[in-house]
């Protein structure tokens, strides 16, 4: 809305400005050609110029403001625009300034010529004035000469004397007055004597009394006949006249006609020339004003045109600059508007074609990139979801990628940052050290493909990893490997597999041993018993004691062997679990109660009453708890009883969505497990007891694993601590109090 209004206003202003400026130019042209019209046209010239100049000023000011704002903001093309405007303005200003200087110089020279003419005319006028003054002087002298003859004349003879004197002096009129201005004598060619003679003009009389002569040029009524008259009044002083009284003589002399005409002509010429010069001066003033207006209008029009042309000229260039910026910013789908069909239009068209090509190329590139990203994500997904750990190294043996499984196996919560040297991995995670050493050694070995087994001491005990490595070869254009582009290492946690294999082997050994040993044991025991019954009574006391001791030893050892065989049998048999909902609270209380009966002070149970009811094989759980508590009590050796603390809590894993677990801890303050046995304490035949079979903890582990749980050994400051983790389904979470 505002834009439309602004455009309309600008258009109207531009139209008014163009009309006013054009009118001003036309009126100035007319008035310059015909100076008589300048008076009537001047108000219109001033008005149209004022309107035109105001609009031009406004438009140029707006343009300058916009340009400066763009320049300060550093908009593209502003500098170019600024430069072009400067060039155009300079081009417009230089001829205008030169013309102005020359014009003013020429006008000054004309003025000097005109002034010389005026000086000549005024000189002529002064010459005429001098001539007239000379004549006045002569006439005055003549009048004073007459005064001698008039002064000595009696009153009755005065008119005759005046008549004679008038003829002699060529005066037109002679009148004699007494000192009071009363006429006493008269001789005139100008008028007839009257009955009541007029007295002397009081103004003249006053002058005479003051001793001043009166001389004045007067127009005559009969100017055509006599021309101008020179009126001279002088005092006549004589002691002889009527007791010494003075008289006043008034005389009119005609000024010669050529002199009058000459004076009039010179006077007219002087005044005409003064008028002409004055008007010329005014013409200069008006023309200067007109010239200044013309100059301003031309200058501002040139300025405006400079802005307009520059905008027209730079607009496509600025568009191109903006287009280039768009391309630099990755915008390829905004073609420039082609406003002309000239060279710049061709350039814009070429730019648009280039932008189109770039857009096409960019689209293809983007598509390819998306495909790569998709494949990368897919590969990432695969790597994340496979159970094998994968580490990809760059040619400089820095970690390029490591998948989640690798982090899980190496128990690293944070995956190493890309770019971390493989050697530094072991500094961040000590668990990874054996693996890192193996990888480093094999890479240094230079074999293209390699595999090895690595054991690491995890928090769950010793873990066995099977590790395979290979070079990543860069395939050149001909699909032939050119150089090593990195290394990939894949490793699996085969602890369970190894354990299962071991279990299977041990089970087979146990089964065979049980089978092979169990069968002869009963006949051996029976035979030993029969030997004792048959021969004991037939022997003397000493021999009988030997027999008795020997047979008892056989029977006891056979019993021991039977128990051992039974243990082997139990280990090898692995009967199917009978899961039933069991309250861990009740189970633990029942088991600990048995031991408390024997060692009330050494067994401590710390459990909450609200433990959930979970599905367990009651007998086998009782079996493992008995085993572990018994081991704990015996952990100080045969001659002492250790303290055993049993606790149970519900724990939740950090992983979201995973089931909660029941954590049972059985800790003692015994002698603990030797370090060399810690790694294989759950292996068959690993025992610290002199008479132990070494199958107890192996059976415990197997039962726990059959419950999908896990068991681990942690060490206290003193003694050992077994932690049994039994996961259970949340839906079965019936609190003990409710079951």
């Amino acid at each position, binding site marked *: 809305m505002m834009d439309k209004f602004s455009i309309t206003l600008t258009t109207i202003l531009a139209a008014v400005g163009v009309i006013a400026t054009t009118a001003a130019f036309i009126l100035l042209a007319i008035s310059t050609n015909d*100076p*008589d*019209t*300048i*008076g*009537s046209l*001047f*108000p219109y010239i*001033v008005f149209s110029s004022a309107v035109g100049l105001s609009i031009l000023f406004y438009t140029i000011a707006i343009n300058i403001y916009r340009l400066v704002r763009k320049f300060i903001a550093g908009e593209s093309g502003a500098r170019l625009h600024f430069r072009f405007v400067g060039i155009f303005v300079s081009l417009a200003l230089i001829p205008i300034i030169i013309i102005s200087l020359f014009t003013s110089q020429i006008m000054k020279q004309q003025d000097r010529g005109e002034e010389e003419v005026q000086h000549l005319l005024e000189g002529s*006028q002064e010459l005429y*004035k001098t001539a007239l003054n000379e004549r006045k002087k002569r006439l005055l002298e003549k009048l004073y000469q007459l005064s001698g003859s008039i002064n000595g004349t009696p009153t009755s003879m005065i008119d005759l004397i005046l008549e004679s004197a008038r003829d002699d002096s060529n005066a037109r009129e002679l009148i004699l007055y007494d000192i009071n201005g009363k006429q006493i004598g008269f001789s005139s060619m100008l008028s007839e004597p009257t009955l009541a003679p007029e007295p002397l003009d009081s103004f003249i009389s006053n002058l005479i009394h003051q001793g001043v002569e009166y001389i004045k*040029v007067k127009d005559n009524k009969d100017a055509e006949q006599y021309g101008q008259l020179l009126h001279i009044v002088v005092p006549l002083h004589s002691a002889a006249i009527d007791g010494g009284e003075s008289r006043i003589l008034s005389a009119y002399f005609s000024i010669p006609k050529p002199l009058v005409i000459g*004076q009039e002509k*010179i*006077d007219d010429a*002087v*005044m*005409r020339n*003064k*008028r002409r*010069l*004055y*008007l010329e001066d*005014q*013409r200069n003033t*008006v023309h200067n*004003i007109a010239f200044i207006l013309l100059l301003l209008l031309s200058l501002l029009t040139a300025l405006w045109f400079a802005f307009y042309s520059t905008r027209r000229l730079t607009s496509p260039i600025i568009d191109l600059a903006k287009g280039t910026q768009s391309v630099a910013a990755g915008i390829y789908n905004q073609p420039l508007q082609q406003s002309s069909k000239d060279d710049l239009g061709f350039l814009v068209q070429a730019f648009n074609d280039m932008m189109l090509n770039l857009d096409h190329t960019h689209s293809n590139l983007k598509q390819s990139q998306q495909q790569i990203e998709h494949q990368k994500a897919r590969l990432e997904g695969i790597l994340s979801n496979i159970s094998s750990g994968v580490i990809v190294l760059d040619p400089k043996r820095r970690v390029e990628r490591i998948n989640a499984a690798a982090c899980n196996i190496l128990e690293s919560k944070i995956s190493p940052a890309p770019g971390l040297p493989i050697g530094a991995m072991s500094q961040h995670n000590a668990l990874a050290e054996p693996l890192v050493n193996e990888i480093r050694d094999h890479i240094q070995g230079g074999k293209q493909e390699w595999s090895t087994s690595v054991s690491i001491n995890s928090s769950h005990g010793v873990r066995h990893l099977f590790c395979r490595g290979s070079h990543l070869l860069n395939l050149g254009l001909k699909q032939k490997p050119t150089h090593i582009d990195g290394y990939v290492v894949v490793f699996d946690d085969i602890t369970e597999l190894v354990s299962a294999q071991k279990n299977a082997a041990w089970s087979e050994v146990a089964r065979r041993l049980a089978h092979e040993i169990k069968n002869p044991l009963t006949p051996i025991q029976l035979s030993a018993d029969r030997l004792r019954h048959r021969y004991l009574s037939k022997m003397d006391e000493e021999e009988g004691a030997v027999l008795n001791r020997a047979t008892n030893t056989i029977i006891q050892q056979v019993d021991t062997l039977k128990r051992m065989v039974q243990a082997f049998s139990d280990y090898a048999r692995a009967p199917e679990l009978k899961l039933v909902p069991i309250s861990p609270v009740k189970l633990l209380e029942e088991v600990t109660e048995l031991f408390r009966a024997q060692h009330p002070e050494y067994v401590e149970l710390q459990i909450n009453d609200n433990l959930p009811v979970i599905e367990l094989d009651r007998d086998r759980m009782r079996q493992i708890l008995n085993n572990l508590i018994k081991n704990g009590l015996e952990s100080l050796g045969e001659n002492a009883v250790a303290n055993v603390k049993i606790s149970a809590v519900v724990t939740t894993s950090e992983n979201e969505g995973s089931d909660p677990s029941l954590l049972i801890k059985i800790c003692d303050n015994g002698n603990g497990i030797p370090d060399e046995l810690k790694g294989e304490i759950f292996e068959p035949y690993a025992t610290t007891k002199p008479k132990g079979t070494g199958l107890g903890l192996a059976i415990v582990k197997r039962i726990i694993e059959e419950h999908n749980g896990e068991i681990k050994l942690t060490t206290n400051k003193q003694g050992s601590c077994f932690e049994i983790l039994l996961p259970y389904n949340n839906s079965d979470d019936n609190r003990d109090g409710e079951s």
Partner: protein
Amino acid sequence: MLLSSPLRAEITIVNPELRESSDNFIVRAQFSYKLDKRVIGALQNGIQMTFIAEYQIEEVTPLLQFSPPFFHSNREILHGEHSFSLSYRQFNNRYYLISLDNNSHGTYSTIEEAVDRMRLRNDKLTIDKSILDRDKNYQVKIRASLDASSMPGLLKPYIYTPILWPEWKLDSGWHTIPIEALKK
């Protein structure tokens, strides 16, 4: 006194009056002239200036009832004017004042004398009552100004654009006197 303001010319109407006699109305006014030195300069450079004293009788006819004066559509009933010219002769250094109505003239040695004589002109306009209607409103308008039409073309710009050259603003503007006596 008359030339005290060097950059401001002025013609003011002094003592305008409307006198009534049995048959006539007589309009009189004196005009005070202040001539700037530039105007006097023009005079001394041979530019003859004609001054006009104008008297005008108008019938006042408002376009609407109670409408303001600029909405009036007045009709001129009578127009009278007295013109005189002022000039200067360098030879005898005298100013000439000539009435263009009766050709009477006077010469003055100073511009002050000439301008003072211009002020003392006592022109008047006599209005015959018979040309006026009792039921209508009339007003007398008086104005004195320099006659731009008699000036050389190159000086007209000054007179026509007095806003730019206040020294050439030689126009008293119209002074209006309503004629009330007829209603009495």
